[in-house]
């Protein structure tokens, strides 16, 4: 790496685009910033709600191919999270 890192000291997922599945069926994709007391803070995040016209699989597939549509500059996911995966590994 070139060493131009300006925000050291965060956890391993900091700066990584993740797919969060919540207990209520919501899927959230965004760039992990940090975990705080209220939940997980994501940047440039997009959400897919249960029952949405776009299925969860399409939502993830489209994000993989065309990138994440940043619906929320910053989003705190406070729902119960049942899985965390890296988007690039799906």
């Amino acid at each position: 790496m070139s060493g131009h890192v300006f925000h050291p000291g965060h956890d391993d997922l900091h700066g990584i685009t993740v797919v969060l599945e919540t207990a209520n069926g919501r899927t959230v994709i965004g760039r992990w910033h940090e975990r705080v007391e209220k939940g997980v803070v994501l940047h440039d995040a997009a959400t897919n709600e249960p029952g949405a016209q776009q299925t969860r699989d399409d939502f993830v597939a489209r994000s993989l191919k065309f990138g994440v549509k940043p619906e929320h500059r910053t989003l705190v996911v406070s729902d119960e999270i049942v899985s965390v995966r890296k988007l690039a590994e799906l």
Partner: protein
Amino acid sequence: MAYPDLMTRPMREEVTRLGIQELKTTAEVDAVMGEGEGTVLVFVNSVCGCAAGGARPALTLALQHGVKPGKVVSVFAGVDGEATQRARSFFSDYQPSSPSLALLKDGEVVHFVHRHMIEGKHPQQIAAELTAAFDKYC
């Protein structure tokens, strides 16, 4: 937010020393990309240490490959805003992210590397994926 030149200059130089043309204005973008002919690799540079810190060395490695795009250019997201926006208009089906790389052939995007495909990877891995695309399309 404008980043100070003192911060961004090393990141620019890491790219320009490879012989990559940095595009700072919309006119410069149009002059290179408006032709819509041949292969062009566009590197969207970024101040993000997490991803760009891997992308720039990957670009260095990839450009040592025998097969390369006809032109390689860069724009700097968050620094040269208008030029970056104009460059992105040539691959507008793809959500903006930085760093990212777009490989165009005759004006069409044939390969796109999003930020999420760079994050957490070693430069060698990113470079290998890029050179595979060079072999396929260039």
